[in-house]
Structures are given as structure tokens and as C-alpha cells.
């Protein structure tokens, strides 16, 4: 059985012309075009390039939304098993387009195999979505790139999509953690690693310890008595019954709730949605996680100008750094737009 492939290439490799044709909108051709011919030859009997999408690099990058919509429609219509994009070598706009095609296809559950130079911005930005073979920085490396991509496609077919590590298969790391069932259970692997460490023989850690990014400290508040202070928490404090259904673990969202007119939080009005700690203390008195009562006192006493009348909340339990970062950026923007001077972030 052969799988059905759609190939994405730019105007140049699509034989439409060079820079002068870079504004070419999406065109759909039957069968392989340009480098697709060599790919098809290398994949005979295993895969068939049924269609080729050709798009000008400038068109794609200047009309990204439109281009993505067009490509999504084509893919939904053709329903290929796999997409091959490029190779784009070190061509920046072409790499960005191939990467973006990867993102669109990922959204549809269609895998993508591409080829790029390791410094192509399309790799850096979109590496999560595609298996990208490393190529040289110019099209002079086409003769090496095509067999390398065909080899990865073949492996993908033979292993029914369950590819091994980047080093084993010859693609550049996607920056993803991928689950698989190992031959030996974890405890046995741990003992083997312990023995290697004791004997001084080489071993490969299964997880490299993470490195977190840093933000420059912000200037201090000069005058508290005129400052608006906002409360933010990862402790999952929400109005009773969790109206927005924030997940008890691995949160996909945060909540924005009014505390306007509230003197404090209490058992009747608020609770925690967090599944990662004993909720009894917080449910009895939610001020233990989100100190509204004390901030109201300080507001009344004039120590702070104002307690911001909305608080922001999510569940930190098992929530990925990527989600947390996105929530943080959005919450910061809301606070900034509302003229908030500083935030108190509480964690459980």
C-alpha cells in the first residue's frame, strides 16, 4: 500500500520564476513538480505525491492568514497521509512558509516532513510541528537533501508514524517530549544507570534538567498610597462552583473575576479548583490563598491607593510552562491596560 503525499514548494522550485514571481498566490498542481520528481523516484512503491502546492514566498509571508486558510482548505479536501515541505535550505521566507504549513497540518493531525538549514528561522519558530531534516545552507545541497528526506519518509511509513529519536532517524530536534514504551521498566533502567554511574561507564540521562528564562526586575513603586494593587494567584481560587470550569490540573485557561464591593472572600462565595493540594483550609477561608480581607483593610487605611477590582486566577497544578507563560503575558496586558501599578502573585 502506498501512502498519499502532498508536497509544498515555493515559486522558484515550482518553476514559476525567481524573485519576480514571489507574489504568486497558491496554485495546486497534479503529481510531483520540481524537486518532487526526485522525491517521487526515491519513494516509488511507498508513497505517491498526489498534489503539489506551489506558493510565492512573498505572497505567503505577506498574506499569512489567507495563505494558511487556503492551505487548510486544500488539505481538508485532499486528506493526505503526509505532507512534505521544501527543502527550504537557508531561504528565510521559504523556511517560514514550510514551518507554517507544518503548524497548519499539525492542527489537522497531518504529519509533516521538511528539510532546512539549522539556522533557518522556520526551524527555530516552527520546529514543534514538523520533522525537519538538516540540509546545507543552499540549494547546492539538493542532492543530499532529497535522499535524506526520502529516508525519513520511508522510516515514517515503515514505523507507522512512530519515529525514534532525532539522532536515530536523522531529523533535527523538535523541542518536544514524546512518550514511548521502553523495553525495560523504569526501575530496571534506574538500576542500570546507577551501575553505569558507579562503574564510570557512559550513560545517557533520559531527561536533561530544565533551564528557565529570566525577566529583568521592574522598578519599585514610589508611592503606595496612590498605587493600584492587583491580586493574581496560581492557587485556583474561583467563585463557588468554578463557573469557567478551570481544570483541577493542567489548566488550559485562567479566570478574571470581580471582587468589587467584596470585603473578603468567604466559604459561601469562593473555593479552590486546584487538585494538587489539600483544599480544606482554602475552602474554609479563601483569604488564606488570596488575601482580599487584608488588602481591603490596607485600602481603607490609605496604605494602598486601591485594590484592583478584578483578580486573575488559574490552577498551577500540572500546568505546562508554555500555558503558564501565555496566561502570564495576557494577564499582564490586562493589568497594564487597567492602569494597575503592581501585582501580588500568590502560589500554592
Amino acid at each position: 500500500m502506498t501512502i498519499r503525499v502532498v508536497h509544498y514548494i515555493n515559486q522558484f522550485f515550482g518553476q514559476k520564476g525567481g524573485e519576480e514571481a514571489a507574489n504568486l498566490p497558491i496554485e495546486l498542481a497534479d503529481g510531483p513538480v520540481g524537486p518532487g520528481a526526485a522525491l517521487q523516484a526515491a519513494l516509488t512503491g511507498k508513497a505517491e505525491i498526489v498534489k503539489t502546492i506551489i506558493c510565492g514566498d512573498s505572497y505567503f509571508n505577506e498574506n499569512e492568514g489567507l495563505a494558511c486558510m487556503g492551505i487548510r482548505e486544500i488539505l481538508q479536501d485532499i486528506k493526505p497521509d503526509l505532507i512534505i515541505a521544501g527543502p527550504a535550505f537557508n531561504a528565510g521566507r521559504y523556511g517560514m512558509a514550510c514551518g507554517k504549513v507544518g503548524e497548519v497540518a499539525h492542527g489537522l493531525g497531518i504529519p509533516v516532513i521538511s528539510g532546512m538549514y539549522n539556522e533557518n528561522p522556520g526551524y527555530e519558530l516552527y520546529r514543534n510541528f514538523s520533522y525537519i531534516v538538516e540540509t546545507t545552507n543552499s540549494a547546492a545541497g539538493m542532492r543530499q537533501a532529497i535522499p535524506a528526506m526520502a529516508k525519513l519518509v520511508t522510516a515514517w511509513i515503515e514505523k507507522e508514524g512512530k519515529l525514534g529519536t532525532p539522532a536515530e532517524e536523522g531529523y533535527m530536534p523538535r523541542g518536544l517530549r514524546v512518550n514511548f514504551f521502553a523495553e525495560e521498566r523504569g526501575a530496571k533502567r534506574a538500576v542500570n544507570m546507577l551501575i553505569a554511574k558507579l562503574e564510570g561507564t557512559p550513560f545517557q540521562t533520559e531527561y536533561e534538567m530544565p533551564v528557565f528564562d529570566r525577566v529583568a526586575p521592574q522598578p519599585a513603586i514610589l508611592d503606595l498610597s496612590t498605587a493600584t494593587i492587583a491580586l493574581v494567584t496560581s492557587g485556583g481560587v474561583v467563585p463557588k462552583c468554578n463557573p469557567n470550569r478551570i481544570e483541577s490540573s493542567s489548566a488550559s485557561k485562567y479566570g478574571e473575576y470581580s471582587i468589587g464591593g467584596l470585603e473578603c472572600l468567604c466559604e459561601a462565595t469562593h473555593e479552590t479548583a486546584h487538585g494538587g493540594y489539600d483544599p480544606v483550609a482554602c475552602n474554609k477561608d479563601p483569604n488564606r490563598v488570596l488575601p482580599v480581607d487584608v488588602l481591603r483593610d490596607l485600602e481603607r487605611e490609605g496604605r494602598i491607593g486601591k485594590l484592583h477590582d478584578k483578580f486573575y486566577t488559574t490552577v498551577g497544578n500540572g500546568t505546562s510552562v508554555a500555558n503558564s507563560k501565555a496566561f502570564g503575558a495576557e494577564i499582564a496586558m490586562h493589568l497594564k491596560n487597567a492602569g494597575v501599578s503592581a501585582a501580588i502573585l500568590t502560589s500554592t
Partner: protein
Amino acid sequence: MPVVHIATVVPISLTVGANRIVPAVAIPHPLGNPKMDPAEEKALRRSLVEKALTALTTEIEDQTVF
């Protein structure tokens, strides 16, 4: 806009990169302690919030635990 992180596990707060950090009481109740008398507990909460306000009004150059 300065942010102060009130957190129990200060090492995590330092690892993930918070700049102004105020150590809290315990994970399930960072700003309280159910074992305390309610008035005492609120005084404890107030002292932590006041420390957080001090952190927000203090210029810092690097990660600082208050």
C-alpha cells in the same frame, strides 16, 4: 510593573525566575494557618502582605527574597 511572588517553596520561585519573593506559610495555605486563632491568623496574613508591599517599594537589581 513590579510583581511580588508570595510562595512557600522559595527554591522553585528562584528557579523559575521570580524577582521579588516573599516566603509563605505552607503550600495549602500560603497566607494563613488554620491551626491559629482567627485574629492571630489575620495578623499573620497582614504581616505577609505588608512584607509584599515592602518588596514592591524596594528597588532591586537581582532576585531577592524578602
